[in-house]
């Protein structure tokens, strides 16, 4: 698990990107419900590392982040792409310990 930032650095529904020691990138989200999620930051449709910059919301009640490039929705809890179930992004384990967000490998 890698500590990436304090929980207080996150604004609800506004993701941030973090760099892991192996060079991979995660998109970390705090939802307005108070849950924290970490997904792979690379949008599989464009290849750009931008998922952290997407709009967070829900689709049919399922919490999602929407890629800022071509607007596909990814489920925050599973990484599954709701617009193309054959693809998705990795889900990283995430814990908040002493107010610090820690992210692991998928």
């Amino acid at each position, binding site marked *: 698990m890698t500590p990436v930032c304090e929980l207080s650095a996150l604004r609800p529904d506004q993701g941030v*990107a*973090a760099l892991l020691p192996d060079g991979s990138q995660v998109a970390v989200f705090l939802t307005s419900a108070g849950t924290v999620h970490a997904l792979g930051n690379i949008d*599989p449709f464009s290849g*750009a590392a931008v998922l952290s910059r997407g709009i967070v*919301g*829900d689709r049919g009640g399922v*919490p*999602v982040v929407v890629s800022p490039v071509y607007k596909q929705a990814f489920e925050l809890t599973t990484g599954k792409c709701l617009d193309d179930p054959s693809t998705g992004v990795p889900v990283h384990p995430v814990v908040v310990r002493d107010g610090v967000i820690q992210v692991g490998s998928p």
Partner: protein
Amino acid sequence: MTRTLVVAGHGMVGHRLVEALREKDVTGQWRIVVFAEESRPAYDRVALSSYVDSWDAGSLAMPPHDDTVELRLGDQVVHIDRDAKTVRTASGRVQPYDALVLATGSVPFVPPVPGRDLPGCHVYRTIDDLDGIRATVESARSSGRHAGMVLGGGLLGLEAANALRGMGISPHVVELGPRLMPLQVDEGGAGLLKRLVEKLDLTVHTGTSASSIEEDRGRLIAKLSNGVELDLDVVVFSAGIRPRDELARSFGLEVGPRGGIVVDKACRTSDQDIYAIGECANLDGMVYGLVAPGYSMAEVVADRLLGGDAAFPGADMSTKLKLLGVDVASFGDAHAKEEGALEVVVNDAVAGTYAKLVVSDDAKTLLGGILVGDASKYGSLRPLVGRAVPGDPVALIGPEGGVELTLPHDAQVCSCHAVTKQHIVDVVNSGDAVDVPGIKACTKAGTGCGSCVPMLKKLLSECGVEQSKALCEHFDQSRAELFEVVRSTGTTTFTELISRHGRGLGCDICKPAVASILASLDNGHVLEGEQATLQDTNDRFLANMQRNGTYSVVPRIPGGEITPEKLIVIGEVARDYGLYTKITGGQRIDLFGATVDQLPGIWKRLVDAGFESGHAYGKALRTVKSCVGTTWCRFGVQDSVSLAIALELRYRGLRSPHKLKSAVSGCARECAEARGKDFGIIATENGWNLYVGGNGGFTPRHADLIASDVDTDTLVKLIDRFLMFYIRTADRLQRTSTWIESLEGGLDHLRDVIVDDSLGICADLEAAMEKHVDNYADEWRGVLEDPEKLSRFTSFVNAPDTPDPTISFREERGQKVPVLLGVPAFGAAESPEVSR
């Protein structure tokens, strides 16, 4: 083998024939040569009176033919050699034909009134006629309001009166018959029509005619047969038409006893190879003076030329028009000529509406009807002519209108383009069209007079196409409704709005839409607090995201005017950050390839040099492009650059449902391409012409004239109102063109609202715009001055200065461009190697 079709005449009907044949003749069987008398190609004569609004002949233009059509203007056919099958033109050109179509139209009938040839007497048919009337009016010596007389109180006469009114003349309308529009309207309807048009400064004289016109010290004095004497500046004859059949007479084709080239149902004349269509043709003893039967004839001939067996289906003489702002419609057997026909009349003198239905003697079949004052039911009633009356006739035209009408499938919905309900239902059910613009594109329905557009909407919902106005799954309201909710409740946050008026968490549709509404209502910086989480891709970092996740930066260059010093700063910034540079279509400079963490440094230098955000990233005003105008140009008539800069500075930062583009041209040469913009301004000798609703993009569209020759203050007021009305009422991502199209009443309604203030909201719209102007602040300066906002512009929360390792560039033509990113397979997304 290619055959040659010669068309004599290029009016609306000749134009339609050429278009129909070019469309149907896929194998190129016919070469088309058109000889026209007028010096300009076909124009929309039906809309002739609107020429007075702009004095821009281009506004009446019909779509040009493709390059294979040879169009000879100002060179009419004067001779036909039927044996040799050739025509000779006025210029002496001899052209062989395999088929000849006479589409020579008609001439106005001028009654033999003494004095009818005096200067100041005109007919009303062509653009040149209107130019002549204008010249007479401008040279008129009378002071105060000019007076004019229109002889003829039919449809054309009232159109002519409308044109005179547009020139600032108070018209007298003189009609020999007992009432106005005797062909279309009955006594009850005409009575109301007279009352409504007299409110508009018209004087109506019925049951009388002009017995003489005399000149008296530069004035025209008309004596009417009822003893009235009128002191006039101009006289316009609009008392009917006579077919142009002289070619037929001279070269041995049969003509009718009262004129018109006799044709059969295939529109063939007495010569197998010669056809006649439109107002010059006489079919079954009738000469039709409306464009719709002419169009039907054109379609018949196009079909016949290609070996088809189409026949004239009979004329639909139905008419719906807005005359002097008064709705008038007439359809089917309007005068109850059918034996035993019954009439049902609802005449509401208080509301100013008159409606009549004509039904068969057993009251089961609808035969026709007349609507005056409110013709909104025309679209649903006209297609039912000849069919069962759906319910109680009084209820159909009563004020409640509570009866839902269902059309039979073969009913013609659009009579301009002969489109049946079945055809429309087919394109909707097949998914080819999902909205009114889609139906228009697939079937042409609604693109003629537009009176069937409400019916198209109804058919969409009948087909089960959800015309839901709900913004998204989180809000049942339309964007316009949400705008009013936010405005009237003073809501300032998305959370508050969705908890009170929506459901769920929101999404990528409603969040940016609400962000835009909040911004339009001046709720501070777009990245302030919660607003930052609502912003779409580009607004989120106030820059345009490119395909590799980098951004492009566009500083504002108002009107495209820039000093060398500022150009050098842009160049230095681009060089120092290694940015790809490109000149945009909006006369500014785009700098590509900035990473998110570089944006603040780039903007610090730009802001220090006096630049501001160009809002290239926002659904907001982009640029106001300009030509160089009178300052330098030998042809300019106004200072287009100063106006463009003033407008760009006025509306900069204005958030709207979609992007807004503008341009100002300093003369009619239109070098700034203003008519391709949401609002475009073209200089005239006397001021400015304002055009609205243009755009490039998927469906390019020229903007339409909404005001002409206005001074700068008036112009700015009109644009204020236009933009604010658009911002308040448009759908999300709806450009101004489709917004105007979606308005009930279209451009006319828009003009009513923003020019004539029909809703009484203009002062409010202007005040809203003043508020925007007063509260404007540069968004990028706002970021640079706020450490909290600035802190969001980092690559990684745990490594703010490490650039995104997936981004790399290569060089092309001396500049850097992105290395295309590999699209990794699911599960391997994390390895940065894949994108190297």
